[in-house]
């Protein structure tokens, strides 16, 4: 890693000696005029400064959490310099095209970004009255998303995945097709990596470079080998820059956060080190509020043309969607794209699970005036039919496919076609929304017309293809 610049070389009072050190924590006695959440620079015998934050402060004692850990520090000689402010990030449009660490210090050998505008990385909550309801459809070119779980500008839509599943590919394809086409000049991407391996970060970087858009990407990397606490700050730094670009500069920003599971583990690690009461699976009781403080920084604001769209990747430990991390995330985000191991093993790409995936903002971003009039009814019908396919498959597992009635067999064929033709597509295939919808009708037309109860007669007249009747039953 490149040498990082000192945070603020000319400020603050220095104290020498700590009364207690433990894990990530250093206790400094009799600190004057320091505040909660204040930034502290801790220096050991080697002279290399480390950053820390005040976690708890009283008249007698300041408890400082050291981001890079306390290894090699001595209680007698350690020096703590209180910097007089909480963590701030200088923000400017020039930061696009650059690579930073989790605290916003350059990692690409370039100079530190020059800006008078330094923002608190914790941000402020958006006044709900000031929010503009997101309803502008973003075409991702991926049928499973556009057709069934449409993404809109200002939405937060995470990808729930598992280890070994191609979430990185899906995410890269989404970014490439939705945000970085050559004609989309205002769009930019902020990429925050938390505890992922360097290869993965490099994969994204290469992919952005291939689409010729690296100058519209800023990366905040806190990789697997970086200190745990830094991971907690990387997404906040990324979102702080995103807010500047979206709401001050009027750009459309997509923020990619990966991998939220690592983030939550760091939060647990830090919480445990502080001796906090653990909640479910040892995660701190405030995990929900903490995640919300990140996810809720997406959206649109009245009076600014820009937007922040978020997609967070999280790997579900042992594919368990009820694990606290995906569970709480699902309660905050506006839907989720779930990747399915069974589809993946059958070689279907993208392996986006049909039923548990959901986009809550889709209802207002598609249909007449947005995509096409038939879109909502078509999506609802596809969901209903595919849900029935799942039931028929469960039945077929028990009584055997041969014993199924003719109607149910038709559903099995529909299910196959849905997975192989509609869900499945190439990694470089960019399907326009009209093509996605037509494909949906083509496949629905394999079922008898009277089974399609969620679609109005008029839409059926227009789109239901009788001629594919040859394929039926």
């Amino acid at each position, binding site marked *: 890693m490149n040498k990082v610049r000192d945070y603020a070389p000319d400020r603050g009072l220095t104290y020498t000696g700590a009364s207690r050190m433990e894990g990530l924590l250093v206790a400094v006695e009799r600190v004057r005029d320091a505040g909660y959440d204040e930034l502290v620079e801790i220096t050991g015998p080697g002279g290399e400064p480390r950053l820390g934050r005040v976690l708890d402060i009283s008249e007698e004692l300041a408890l400082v959490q050291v981001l890079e850990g306390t290894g090699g520090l001595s209680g007698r000689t350690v020096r703590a310099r209180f910097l007089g402010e909480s963590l701030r990030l200088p923000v400017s449009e020039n930061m696009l095209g650059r690579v930073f660490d989790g605290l916003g210090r350059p990692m690409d050998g370039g100079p530190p970004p020059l800006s008078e505008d330094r923002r608190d990385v914790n941000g402020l*909550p958006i006044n709900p009255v000031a929010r503009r309801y997101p309803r502008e459809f973003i075409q991702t070119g991926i049928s499973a998303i556009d057709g069934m779980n449409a993404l809109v500008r200002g939405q937060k839509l995470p990808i729930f995945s598992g280890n070994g599943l191609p979430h990185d590919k899906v995410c890269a394809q989404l970014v490439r097709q939705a945000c970085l086409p050559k004609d989309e000049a205002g769009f930019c991407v902020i990429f925050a990596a938390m505890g992922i391996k360097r290869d993965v970060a490099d994969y994204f970087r290469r992919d952005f470079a291939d689409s010729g858009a690296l100058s519209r990407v800023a990366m905040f990397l806190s990789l697997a080998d970086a200190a745990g606490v830094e991971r907690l700050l990387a997404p906040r730094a990324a979102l702080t820059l995103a807010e500047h670009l979206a709401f001050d500069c009027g750009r459309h920003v997509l923020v990619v956060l990966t991998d939220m599971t690592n983030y939550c583990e760091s939060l647990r690690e830090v919480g445990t080190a502080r001796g906090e009461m653990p909640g479910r699976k040892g995660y701190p009781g405030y995990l*929900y509020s903490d995640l919300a403080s990140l996810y809720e920084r997406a959206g649109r604001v009245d009076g600014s043309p820009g937007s922040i769209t978020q997609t967070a990747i999280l790997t579900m430990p042992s594919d368990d969607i009820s694990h606290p991390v995906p569970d709480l995330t699902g309660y905050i985000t506006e839907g989720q794209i779930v990747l399915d191991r069974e589809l993946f093993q059958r070689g279907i790409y993208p392996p986006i699970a049909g039923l548990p995936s959901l986009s809550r903002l889709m209802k207002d971003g598609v249909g007449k005036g947005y995509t096409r009039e038939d879109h909502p009814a078509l999506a609802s019908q596809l969901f*209903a039919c595919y849900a029935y396919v799942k039931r028929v498959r469960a039945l077929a597992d028990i009584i055997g496919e041969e014993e199924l009635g003719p109607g149910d067999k038709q559903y099995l064929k529909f299910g196959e076609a849905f997975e192989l033709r509609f869900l499945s597509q190439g990694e470089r295939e960019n399907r326009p929304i009209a093509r996605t919808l037509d494909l949906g009708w083509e496949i629905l037309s394999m079922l008898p017309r009277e089974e399609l109860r969620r679609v109005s007669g008029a839409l059926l007249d227009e789109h239901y293809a009788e001629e594919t009747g040859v394929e039926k039953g």
Partner: protein
Amino acid sequence: MSPGEEEKSYVSRVNGPVVTVKGMGSACMYEVVRVGELGLAGEVVRQSAGCSIVQVYEDTSMLKPGAPVKRTGAPFSLWLGPGLMGNIYDGVQRPLRSLLASGGSWIKRGGKTDPLDISRRWEFEPLLKAGQEVAAGQAAGLVPETPLVRHKVLVPPGMSGKVISAAAAGSYSVTDTLAVVETARGPVELKMMQKWPARQARPAAERRRVSEPLVTGQRVIDTFFPIGKGGCACIPGGFGTGKTITQHQLAKWSDAGIIIFIGCGERGNEMTEVLREFPELKDPRTGRPLMERTILIANTSNMPVAAREISIYTGITMAEYYRDMGYDVAVFADSTSRWAEALREMAVRLEEMPAEEGFPASLPSRLAQFYERGGAVTTLNKEPGSISIVGAVSPPGGDFSEPVTQHTRRFTRVFWSLDTELANARHYPSINWLRSYSDYLDEVEPAWEKLCPGWRGLRSEAMVVLQREEHYQQIGRLIGPDALPDGQRLYLFIGGIMRDGFLAQNAFEEKDMYCPPAKQAALLGLIMALYRGGREYIKAGGSLKEISSLPCVPAILRARTDYAGDDLAGLAGLSARLAGELEALTAKSVTEGS
């Protein structure tokens, strides 16, 4: 020592939202204080050995030991008066629109604005005369707050005596004196606005039994699991099961006079959606915009956690205020789990001993206190009024055995259980009809029978069909539905029609989003007629195939979206068509059989 006297209080320790203050020994429990140079609002939650523990409603970043603390001398109190209606507040009653006007799109710390606009003047029509005796709860005058709400200016609880002077009709601001009352403790001024501590329930004369139904226009709720005015309901569901949409639907269409929606620790965009939709939607009974009878409390998930804890009390206190005017109020809290989590977070910071899953041991009693503030009452003014509470619960992992769901069940009598499987098939509202219940059936039966005669009988018959459907489906899952005899497959067929043609309801389709009671009864009657006809026909040796291919079946399925709420004639026509087709079928089989 009174709060006005000099007492040197200062911050001694800061641990997130929990701040220890020294030199404030005379402060009362739950008194509101202002902390630091920014004047962050907080509440005294513990007093011990010369220290006061304050829970601060705002972010405490860069708050320093030694910073000054000021007492206000009062517990957290709400401003109650005209101007609440149609407004949107955060958890501590800061009007978000005013914050936007004064501070921009982001909520900055220490922002202070009056909860009610004190410069606005309201038309006041007095009901008091000088020399008259008044008692607490009596209406001193009327203010047309919105076209839907006639605001009664109430004599505050605890005040009674003889009116010395009373203002004439005219326009006044909320702080103007409207009357002076000679009470036992001397003359007291009566204003349009009164203050009331949020954590304290407002008094009523007595509790009444719940008897009127709260008509919601949602079929699965009204017909199968009805709630009464003054009832409490719990609506649990994992993420993605449509809790919020169901709550929005209820808030839009319930026939309560006043709606209070508390967005407690939920998404910001959802509140924006309500703000965007409610002014456009028309109340089906009056044709006026819904916003004219709605108050929103928005403390979204990223807003401070201590304010989230109190937001629930803010909402319920406003509800009690309107109840005291004789209104039926419905309170929607989305979600009480986030509120319970706020309790837990604060308890952990206060180092309380945790009980189940880290929640404080006081969780059940706190939940009980909240739900007990709902109910049907006779107000101090001897009028009927009620508060119905619908609390959403977000159980982690969709597991209903967790403490918040379990304890909420104990204090509510309606349980609308949301189901992931139904939601996955995009069947909304995803209320599972076999796991939900309503304990108000007997109470609301007379009123429902008056609205649609035969309601209870139809409901019971339909429930039996749904139970049998589930039973035969289980068998069908083992041996294949085609192996079942027609008499049993009929239940699968009718069950399917019930699901798609009755239980599912499209919140975005104009003719379907609100279903009046008469249409509900007509739709269910139609399906039950098909069921009875089918049962008789199959008993007589006919086949299910003939029943299911009756030409009117697709029309029955689409009836909920094809006929408007008041098109009972159309539905009667469909019913006659069904009877005709069934008769023709029977006649045909008789001729063939003979």
